[in-house]
Every structure is written in C-alpha cells, then in structure tokens.
C-alpha cells in the first residue's frame, strides 16, 4: 500500500521542529509500524537524506522503548499494543498518517521522534524499590506466603513497561497511571508495606517536581496503556497518599 506520512522532524533539543511530508510505497499489511519506518529510513539514506530518528529496542512489546503519537493516539489506533506491535494492516492504502513524538513538558524532545523519558526514572528512583540487604543473607521472596489475588493484582501493576503512553494520551500530561502502577506493585505485597508511607510520598513529590499535569480522571491513560494498567491503581495511590499524609 501507499501511505502519506506527516512526520515531526527536529534537529536537536534546542532547534525548532516542524512537520515534514513523505510518501511511502510498497508497505505490506504484515509489517510492523517500526518496520514501515525502517523502510522509509532506508529510502532516505539511499537518497542521502537524514533518516528519521525514533526509539525502539525489543520490538516485541516488553521494553517500553518505542513511543510515537500516531494519528493523535499514543502507539496508534490499536488497543493493548505498543508501536512495535502495531501492524500496518490497521491502515489502508492511501491513508495519511500523522506521526509525532510523545508531548509533555517532562518529556523534552531530543531529536525527531525521540523524547527524554528520564523523568520516569527519577520517579522510580524516588521510591520505586524495596530495601533488601543482599550481603549474603538474602531471604527468598517466596518464603513469605502471599494471597493469590494480591500476588496477581501486584503482578498486573508490575506489567507497566514505563512507556509513557499514559502521559502522551492524557490531556493534562499527567503521570498518575505510571506512578500509581509503580506504587501499587509494592503496596499490595507484604515486602512493600514496610516502606509504603515514604514510597508514595516521595514518588508523588518527584512526579509533581518533574512538571507532569494534574489527573482529572478522564481515563484516557487506561484506554491507551499497552499493558492495560487500570485506573484502580490511581485510586489505590490516592488512598495510599492520603493515608500517608495523615500519618505525617
């Protein structure tokens, strides 16, 4: 199929960017969206032009590195997939596809479609861990009995791959879904309860410091999340935060 692409091109963080039009022929339905961009880049390189820079790593939906706002939606129109898992058969011959970087003040553009998501790393570093002494006497995590539904629910939260689609989709550029998933994966387990108060306070403080917006419960994040992280996580984080604030 033949596609008309409108792609955000930006030389570097400090240069102003703009949309550039490309026409691409010979795209097959079973290619992934990133393979389609690979073909475009081969064309560009052959013509001696700068290829379009975009993020990717695993290309199987597990690392969270690929991004892209495709026709106004993060990871494109399909549900529960990342951009690397998005098939070109979701588009039709002759379609115009608008491709932009994820937009948030806390995700500044580095080049073209690549944004700096290290704000997520800093939120994680602020409390998204448990303190375990690993100097030779580490206790096996499975030695602590955990109710099955708590373990399953914590695992669901832990499937967040930190891609940032929640922020990109949210009209407020809020990072509540990501942060709440990272709070929740520990809050539901006995090992995580130990530092629960500090964790939620510190992670929310870092999230606010990074300049993400306020959550207004539109639910866009939940719909666009490739891993199906639910709004229940945000409600849980609200509870955790209120309880922690009262404790002081």
């Amino acid at each position: 199929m033949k596609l008309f692409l409108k792609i955000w091109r930006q030389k570097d963080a400090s240069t102003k960017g703009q949309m550039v039009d490309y026409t691409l022929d010979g795209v097959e339905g079973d290619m992934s969206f990133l393979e389609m961009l690979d073909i475009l880049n081969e064309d560009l390189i052959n013509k001696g032009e700068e290829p379009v820079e975009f993020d990717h790593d695993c290309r199987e939906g597990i690392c969270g590195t690929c991004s892209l706002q495709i026709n106004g939606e993060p990871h494109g129109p399909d549900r529960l997939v990342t951009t690397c898992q998005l098939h070109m058969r979701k588009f039709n011959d002759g379609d115009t596809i608008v491709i932009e970087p994820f937009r948030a003040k806390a995700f500044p553009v580095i080049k073209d479609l690549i944004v700096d998501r290290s704000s997520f790393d800093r939120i994680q570093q602020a409390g998204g861990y448990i303190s375990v002494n690993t100097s030779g006497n580490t206790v096996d995590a499975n030695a602590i009995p955990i109710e099955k539904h708590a373990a399953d629910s914590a695992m669901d939260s832990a499937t967040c791959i930190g891609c940032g689609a929640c922020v990109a989709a949210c009209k407020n550029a809020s990072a509540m879904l990501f942060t709440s998933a990272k709070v929740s994966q520990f809050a539901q387990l006995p090992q995580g309860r130990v530092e629960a108060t500090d964790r939620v306070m510190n992670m929310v403080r870092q999230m606010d410091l990074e300049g993400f917006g306020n959550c207004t419960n539109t639910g866009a994040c939940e719909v666009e999340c490739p891993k199906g992280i639910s709004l229940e996580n945000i409600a849980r984080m609200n509870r955790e935060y209120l309880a922690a604030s009262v404790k002081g």
Partner: protein
Amino acid sequence: MSGLIKSSIARKLVMALSGLFLVVFLTQHFVINFTSVIAPETFNQWSHFMGYNPLVQFVLQPILIAGVVIHFVMGFILEAQNKSARGVSYVKYNGGANASWMSRNMIYTGLVVLAFLGLHFYDFWVHEMAYKYVEVKAEDPTRYHAETVEKFAPIWRTLLYVVSFVLLSLHLWHGFASSFQSMGVNNKYSPVIQKIAKIFAVVIPLGFAFIAIYHHLNPITH
C-alpha cells in the same frame, strides 16, 4: 499537612470534596425549588426560613460561597497547570478516541455554570439583599412564590436557565462520578456508585429545567 495542598493528589481531593459539597447543596436547593411547583405554601415558608434564619444567612451561606469559590479557583489553577504540562501542543490530538467529551471539557461546562451563577445571583440574591438591607422592607413570608414565578415570565431568562442546566448536567456527568475515584474509592461497589452519580447528573438538572419551564408556562393571573 501543608504538603497536602502542594501536591497534585491534594488538589484533586480539594476539587472532589468541594464538588461533592456543591452536589449536596444542589440536592437541597432542588428539593426546596420543587415545592414551588407542588406546594407554594411550603415553598414560601421554606424560602422565608432560608432568608431570615441567622444560621443559614451568616454561617451556611458564607460556607456555600466559599465552597463555590474554592471549586472554581482550584479549577482554574488545575486548568492552567495542565495546559502548561503539555509544553508543545500536538498537531493532531484525537482526544475523543480515549476519553468522553464531558471529561475533556470540564473547564468550559464549568465556565458556563459559573456565568449562570452570576445571572442567578443577580436575579435572586441581589434582589433579596436589596429587599432586606437597602430598601429595608418589612418581612413578608408570602411573597416568594409569586416573585419566583414572575421571574420566569420572560422567555429569554427561562431559556438561559434551561441551557445552563444542560451544561450543568454535562459537568456533573463527569464530575460527580469522578470525585469518588479522586477520594480513592474504586472497588466492587464503584459500578453502582457510578450509575447513581450519572442518574443524579441527569435527573437533578432536568428537574431544575422542568421547574423553570413550568413557571414560564403557568404565570400567576390576578
């Protein structure tokens, strides 16, 4: 505790609690207004009580005004912060693909409701203040029903009220149900709570609109 106000979650809670407070007020206001249709005598008694009871006038009324002010000032602050959190806008943003129109346009439906409050204050509150404190007229517990019905004689005012109630309904549709999520309530009862909140969001504004239209169609003939 001061950390509470600085955090995004606390601001969300302030929005939820002030909103819920206004929902309670709205219910009370609706019940009293409805008596103007079914029992004018009762409407007169209650209105007179509300207008002259010192607890209502000097304690509850200021609390109500504070509730309204907190809700809309916080709404403006959130909107400004959220707008700036995007940084560069998208060339194409398909908001309708993943969120309801109501949830994305709270600032606009809220602004219409706020503008309506201006008109409503002018229509009734300013009138009452003038009656009681400027013109210093004698208490008359029987005047309220006739005065209210008369207000809805002009079609333009009735229409403005009805349109505002539609926007209020859209605002409540997202706001009321969402306040529970903000307070951390998301459990097996949530689907039922959400349904009740949405029924409220339709029924109460519809009721207010009905009252306005009813009075417009049934003027008092002397």
